[in-house]
Structure formats: structure tokens, C-alpha cells
């Protein structure tokens, strides 16, 4: 068996595998650099080199095993954390997605204003004898025809023109039309502003139409000031991702750009009542939800584990049944529960002969969330407790019994402390997991009910992660990735602290063992 990992076969396999991997990564590097994603491109490039060096040489045998894991760790753990922390210091929301040069380009495009009448002309694109792009313009309303280039407009007598069936000029002296097929191959002609009258120019608006515009916004790169030439208003960088009108800073130009605002997203968490008040409520509920879930699932799991820890008929069958909720995909279970609590056709109302709207009342919805999570979570603790109970030496219980302890005292003084000693890290891990139990909330209640008429922004069952999701992706007109990142960092710090505590408890366990 080990023969296939050695010799020519292994060598060929290694070359092919490395070759394919290198090819794919080289391609990704090229794409990343082409899209100006220099950090990502550099990372993939370094990873490609590292893979080839490690697997082509004997520089380090352990690294042959560790390197893929290390690379994935950096790509999918470290990088997202770094990116989230970075974005939490930015104004990064609807209207502020682009970088500054791209935003400025768009602002200038939007600064081209049509003339008051919204004049458009039928045009044909061609070239002058000096090989310059030109348009043959038919102003049919005013019975005027002219050829325009970037710098010059020349009126053409009607008699010298040829027309199509709609009265549009298609040929003129000193004008060589370009076919639509040829125009489609090169769009250089479409980027030219063709001379019209005064400050107005004609811009290409289709293969055969042009509109009259004037560039009202002009940008001075030296001073960084945008000026509206029509009104005289000036706009400057407000250092918050937008050009704002001088003297009236609330008037901003869209689109804006991602701009660093340092700790403002964090300070908003505490200073802005529209964020602070729902956040405190969500934060409190998240802790209660995670804490109650851990206690209830552990309690029920332990109870069942103790009940089935003694010999009884059909124990295997019972054990199998109890594991079923755990074996079933949680997504399916959650959706089934959601259907069961439906007010109209749900099984719960049908059995109880009621018409309760379970998901419209905040307290009932929270109760349903806790109940469903108990259903989903107790088999895990049942399994863990079953194993742990069997690991506790029977002699301890027997000795206690001989000393006169009743079963309740044995459980309280011996079984439970020993179990908690063993299971503390798992309880903490479960708390951390439920703290971020997005699937349950999203699929069961969607975070609701939200009593928006009473000014609620977050739903009654929203936990921090689902609330963050709503801020980031909920309303397309009001997405705020910067704020969502700040909350994510807060969640990360909480979960990391809990996990650190869990790790320390693990060391306690090792000491105990």
C-alpha cells in the first residue's frame, strides 16, 4: 500500500498535482492583479511559491503537512478578521462603495447636464479627410445639418447631402461614414465630446443618436475642489467619503467613496440612540438566549442520559430515538418547526384547537425559539453526558452510598461536580455557538416580530449576528457594512473571550485528569 506513495508513480502524481495547482493559482494571481487586488494577488503568489518550494525540496518535511492548513488559515480566518476590523474603521455603506477615483469619475459623468430642452439629434458617425472622428448631425426640426468633430462644427448645405427614408443625412462631402459593424469593434468615437454651441457639446447616446450636454461640474486636481460652472457652487472632500457643498455641508454629491472614519462606527454603538437602544436589547436577549439554551439543553440531555444510564428494556431503541433530532439536518428541523407553529395550518394550533399567532407576539416568538433550540440541542448533551457518566468511576458512588448519601446527594455532591469539571469547556463552546446561532433565528422567525410602529428597529428574537446581518444586508437602500463590521468585531471579542475562558477550563480539565 505504501508503495504507491513512493517511486515514479508518486513523482508523476506530485508533478501533475503541483502543476495543476500552480496553474490555477497563477491564473488567480493574474486576475487579482488585473483587478488591482494587490494584497490578494501577492498572497496567492507567495502561496504558490511556498507550495512549490516546500513540495519540490526537502527543506522541511513537517511543512509538507502544515503548509496547506496554514495557507487556508490565513486566507479564511486571519484575512476575514483583518478585513472586518479594517472595514469597521471606514464609512462603507450604500452610497459609499467605490474608491475615490472611481467615485470622482462617476460624479463627473453625472455632472454632464443636458440642455434645457433635452435636445437630441439623429447622427451618423464617420471620419473627416484628416482621419478624425466626426458626426454628421441632422437637426431635422430646424432643417439644419452639420459635421462636428471634437474641435470644430461645420454647417453643410442640404443640397450636398444624401438622406435615408426618414430624412436623416447619411452622406456628406468630406465625410466618410463608418458602418455600424466597424463602429462596434472600437468605441473610441463614443468617448469624444463633439463640438456644438458655446459650452455645449454632443455626446453619443446610441449608434444613431446624440444628445446635447454641458459639463457643469469641473474638478481641479491641484486643489481637490469640484466647481459647478452653472451655479458657481463649490464642493470639497468632507473627509467622510463625499464631496460636500461649501457652506452647506449636508448637500453632498453621489456616489461617495469608502473613507476612513476611524472609531466613529464604534462610538455610534454607544452615542446614537437609534443604534444603542436596539443594540442593548438585542445584546441582552442574545446572552439570555445563549445562556438559557445551554442550561436547558444540558439539563434535558443530562436528565435523559441519567435515565438511560441504567439497564432497562429497549434502552438501545430509546437511545436511537433520542439521537434522531441530532441526526436530522437542522435546517430541515427548523423549517418543519416553523410550519408546525404556523397560525393557520400549523400542527400546534390544530392540536390545541387554538389560533395563536406564535410568531407575531414577542414573548411567544421567543418561547418558540427557545423550545426549538432545546429540541435541536439536547441530543448533543445527551450523547456527551452519556459518555461522561460512564467515565465516572462507580466506586465513588458506591462509597458515597455506603457513607449514607441518598441518590439526590450523590448526584449533587459527586456526579454533577465531576460532570461539570469534564463538560465545562463544552458548555462554554455551546454558549459561544449559540451566541452566533444565525441559522435558527433566520429560518425560524427572521428575527421578528419587529414592532416598527413602536419604533423598534431590531426584531424581538434578533440576536447580535442576525441584527448585524440586517444592518449589512437588510435594506438595500441603507446597507451599512462599516457599522456591521464594528458589531462583528464586538461579537468576535465576546466570543473570543468566552473561547479563551473555555481553553483555560480545558487546561483545568487536563490537570484534573
Amino acid at each position, binding site marked *: 500500500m505504501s508503495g504507491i506513495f513512493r517511486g515514479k508513480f508518486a513523482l508523476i502524481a506530485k508533478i501533475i498535482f503541483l502543476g495543476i495547482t500552480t496553474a490555477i493559482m497563477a491564473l488567480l494571481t493574474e486576475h487579482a492583479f488585473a483587478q488591482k487586488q494587490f494584497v490578494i494577488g501577492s498572497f496567492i503568489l507567495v502561496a504558490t511559491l511556498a507550495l512549490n518550494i516546500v513540495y519540490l525540496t526537502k527543506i522541511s518535511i513537517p511543512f509538507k503537512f502544515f503548509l496547506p492548513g496554514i495557507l487556508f488559515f490565513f486566507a479564511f480566518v486571519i484575512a476575514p478578521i483583518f478585513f472586518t476590523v479594517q472595514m469597521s474603521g471606514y464609512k462603507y455603506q450604500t452610497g459609499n462603495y467605490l474608491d475615490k477615483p472611481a467615485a470622482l469619475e462617476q460624479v463627473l459623468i453625472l455632472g454632464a447636464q443636458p440642455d434645457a430642452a433635452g435636445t*437630441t439629434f439623429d447622427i451618423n458617425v464617420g471620419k473627416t479627410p484628416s482621419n478624425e472622428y466626426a458626426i454628421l448631425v441632422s437637426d431635422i426640426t430646424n432643417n439644419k445639418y452639420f459635421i462636428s468633430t471634437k474641435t470644430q462644427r461645420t454647417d453643410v448645405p442640404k443640397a450636398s447631402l444624401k438622406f435615408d427614408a426618414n430624412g436623416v443625412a447619411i452622406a456628406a462631402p468630406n465625410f466618410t461614414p463608418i458602418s455600424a459593424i466597424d463602429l462596434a469593434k472600437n468605441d473610441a468615437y463614443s468617448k469624444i465630446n463633439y463640438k456644438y454651441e458655446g459650452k455645449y457639446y454632443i455626446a453619443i447616446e446610441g449608434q444613431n443618436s446624440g444628445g446635447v450636454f454641458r459639463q457643469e461640474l469641473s474638478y481641479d486636481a491641484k486643489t481637490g475642489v469640484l466647481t459647478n460652472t452653472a451655479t458657481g457652487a463649490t464642493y470639497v472632500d468632507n473627509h467622510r467619503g463625499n464631496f460636500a457643498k461649501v457652506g452647506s455641508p449636508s448637500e453632498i454629491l453621489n456616489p461617495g467613496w469608502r473613507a476612513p472614519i476611524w472609531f466613529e462606527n464604534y462610538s455610534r454603538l454607544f452615542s446614537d440612540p437609534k443604534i444603542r437602544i436596539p443594540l442593548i436589547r438585542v445584546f441582552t436577549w442574545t446572552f439570555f438566549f445563549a445562556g438559557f439554551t445551554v442550561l436547558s439543553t444540558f439539563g434535558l440531555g443530562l436528565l435523559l442520559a441519567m435515565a438511560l444510564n441504567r439497564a432497562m428494556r429497549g434502552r438501545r431503541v430509546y437511545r436511537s430515538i433520542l439521537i434522531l433530532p441530532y441526526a436530522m439536518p437542522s435546517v430541515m428541523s427548523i423549517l418543519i418547526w416553523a410550519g408546525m407553529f404556523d397560525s393557520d395550518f400549523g400542527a400546534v394550533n390544530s392540536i390545541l384547537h387554538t389560533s395563536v399567532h406564535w410568531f407575531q407576539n414577542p414573548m411567544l416568538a421567543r418561547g418558540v425559539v427557545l423550545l426549538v433550540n432545546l429540541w435541536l440541542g439536547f441530543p448533543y448533551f445527551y450523547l456527551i453526558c452519556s459518555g461522561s457518566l460512564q467515565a465516572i468511576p462507580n466506586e465513588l458512588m458506591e462509597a458515597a452510598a455506603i457513607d449514607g448519601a441518598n441518590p439526590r446527594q450523590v448526584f449533587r455532591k459527586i456526579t454533577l461536580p465531576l460532570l461539570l469539571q469534564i463538560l465545562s469547556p463544552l458548555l462554554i463552546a455551546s454558549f459561544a455557538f449559540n451566541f452566533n446561532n444565525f441559522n435558527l433565528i433566520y429560518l425560524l422567525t427572521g428575527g421578528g416580530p419587529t414592532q416598527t410602529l413602536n419604533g423598534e*428597529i431590531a426584531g424581538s428574537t434578533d440576536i447580535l449576528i442576525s441584527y448585524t446581518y440586517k444592518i449589512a444586508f437588510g*435594506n438595500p437602500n441603507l446597507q451599512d457594512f462599516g457599522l456591521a463590521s464594528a458589531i462583528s468585531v464586538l461579537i468576535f471579542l465576546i466570543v473570543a473571550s468566552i473561547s479563551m475562558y473555555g481553553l483555560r477550563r480545558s487546561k483545568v480539565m487536563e490537570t484534573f485528569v
Partner: protein
Amino acid sequence: MQKKRFGFASVIAATALVVSGLLVPSAHASNEIIVWADETRGPHLTKLIAAKGDWVPGYTIKIVTFSSYSALGDALAKATGTSGPDIFVGGNDWVVASAKTGKLAPVTLTASQKAQFTGGQLYDLSYGGKLYGVPLDINNVGMIYNTKLVPNAPKTFGDMVDFYKANKTKLGLKNGLCVTGGGLSWGGLSVFSALGADPYIMTPHGKVQTTYRFNPNVFGANMNKYLLDPVTHKSNGFWASSNTTCNDDFYTGKVPYSIIGNWEWQNYVDRGFAMNLQPVPSVTGGYGKMFGSVSGAFLTSYAALHGTAVGAKSLLVNLFASTAGQVAYEAIEGRPPAAKGAQSDPGVSDAQKGFGAAAALSSIPQIGVILGSNAGGSNYWDSSADYWTQTLINGKDAVVEARKLSKIWNADLAAVASQL
């Protein structure tokens, strides 16, 4: 040994070169116009382009279909200059966010092209005074009634409620009205409006009347009179907003009236349903307003980066905004076309014309910047849905809740008045 290692490296480099040659995707051709659409429009557009592909001389058209409307929205949100489309087809509610984020490019239509559309339709696809797309088809609701149950067209909202109450037992009616098309907020506007609450209204000149405020006392009183039970203060059964099987009940003759979207009409036709179509009558005898919004084909700012801006603009005009294009497309899609020329074309079905007529009778533009405004603590979509929940389901005081609703809508409208 050194030679051998270089040999390995050479072989790997050669393999890499060969494989990367196979993997390199074809570049975005500058004469290929990429159009993104959702799971229903995409296949229809593909069919249309397969039948006639020369809408823009010199350009080919590639339709990219997404698995759902939300998948299309997600893809657009993530689109970059390299990956984004030249045109996408979507609802007008995407205009504000897309324009604000620089994903859209302005479009200039000629006077004759503009004349094909109403001012409201063009307003729907505009933001900050710029038009970003061309209206393709009308998204509106209409109220259908089961003519086997209801002999005469209702003239007022009260007629419908009276019919329900009088025939509830006799005909075994479960409810009186379903709002199937567009949900509680979008489809439910007709009911709000019929009872006296509008988030905004338009002036005869097609502008938003920014000083308008609905009267919560009148609206709340109408709620009590027509929709709420005097004892429980919850739904009196005429409209049970929580009935998720209401449409099935309508099909089986247990509900006489239903507000449906124009895209759903064919389902009823296919079932051989006996029905008539009209807007929701108001309490005073007129009609409740509905969102007569349009879907559009939008020009992206990516088209300029791809070198296809002229082709894309021409495609908007030649196909999506033209009578010929809309008639051909809507023959497959089945929605009422937006262009006036297409609406009167013999190729357009009676149902499409009926919904178009209903929209003309009683519709307001769906103005995303007002409806998405959050200045009052919530936007139209969330607050309107919550009103129905709090009154019809939770039994809260209709007038008190209406005052809260009015406060939110007023603040939302006032905050964006300067942008209208």
C-alpha cells in the same frame, strides 16, 4: 541532483502553462452586450434573442440568467467593473441604491422615445434628475372577483364587506378578500388607499404632493367599520392578513375577492377561472391607489468600461423601449408592456390590456426614495406590514396605530422631499 530538481520545476512549469492556457476564460468581447435577468425574464429574453438577435447591428447579445430575483440583486451588489453586466432587467426599487453606489449610468432618450412613456414611468426609473433605464413593463395589481359568487362589480369597499357578511354562512366563505400579489405592503397599498391612507399622492402634473398627510382618525375609523370586529378588535374575517392559504381558498370559491399581481393572471386563466378585473373600490366610491410601478432595463456604468456603452444604449432603445421589442417580449413574458405603442398593439392580450387599463385608472409611481426612507424610524414596507399585524392580528387600537403610522410616513416623506 540539482539538474533533476530543475527538471521537476520545468515539468511543473510546463504543466502549469498548459493547464492555465486551458483555464483562461474568454475576455469580455467589446461587441458583446451582457444582459442580466432573473429566472423568469432570463429564459424569456434568451428565447427572444434566439428568434431575433440583430437588435443592434454589429453587436451580439448574451443573456445571463440568475436563479431568482434576489440572486440577481445579490450578484448586482457584488458586481465589479470586470464582472458586472452592461444592462440588467429589474424593478424600479433598485434605482436608488444602484444609482447612489455608482452602478448605473444615465440614459438620454429622444423626445419621441420619451413620448412612448408616461411621466410617472420615467420618474420611476430616475434618481436625482437622471434617467437610468427604460420602462419595460408594468408591475401592478388588480382586484379580481369570482363571478360565480359575485354577480355585480362592487362599487365601494363597503359593498364587498357587506357581500361577505351577508353570504358568509350561505356560501361557506372563509374570508372576503385575499392580498396575493405583492404581499401586505406592496399589494396592500390598495387597501390602505381605499380606506383613506396613502403614503404620498401625486399632483395632476405628475409630481409628488409633498405637503400631503393622511388623516389617521378617518382611516382608523374606516378600519373599525370595515375590517375589524367590534368585540375582539381583531380582523372581522373579511381580510385575514395572516391566512397563508388564502389563495387556495380563493381558487376553491371560499373567498370572493382577491388582489393579484398582473404576472399571476395566467394562473387563473389556466384554471378556467370565471372572474372580472378592476381596481379595489374605495369607501367613497372611487378607487384605492395601487403601485403602478414599472420594471426597467437599466444601463450600468460597467458598459463604458467594457467598451459597449453605445451598443448597450442602442439595445435599450431598439429592443427594450421600442414597440416592436416590447410586443415581442411581452408575448412571451405576459406582462402589460410599458410603451404606449405596445399597449395598443393587437399582439397584446386582453388581460395585459386590462391590467394596463387598471393601472391607468388608479395607480401611483412606486418612488423608492420615499418608500425606502427611514427617517421616521422605519420605512414604508416595514411599517405598513406592521400596521396590519398590530391591528388585524394583535387587536391593537386602529386609530392609535394609524397615528403612529402617519407619524412615520410623514417623517419619511419630509426627509426626502428635497430629493423629489
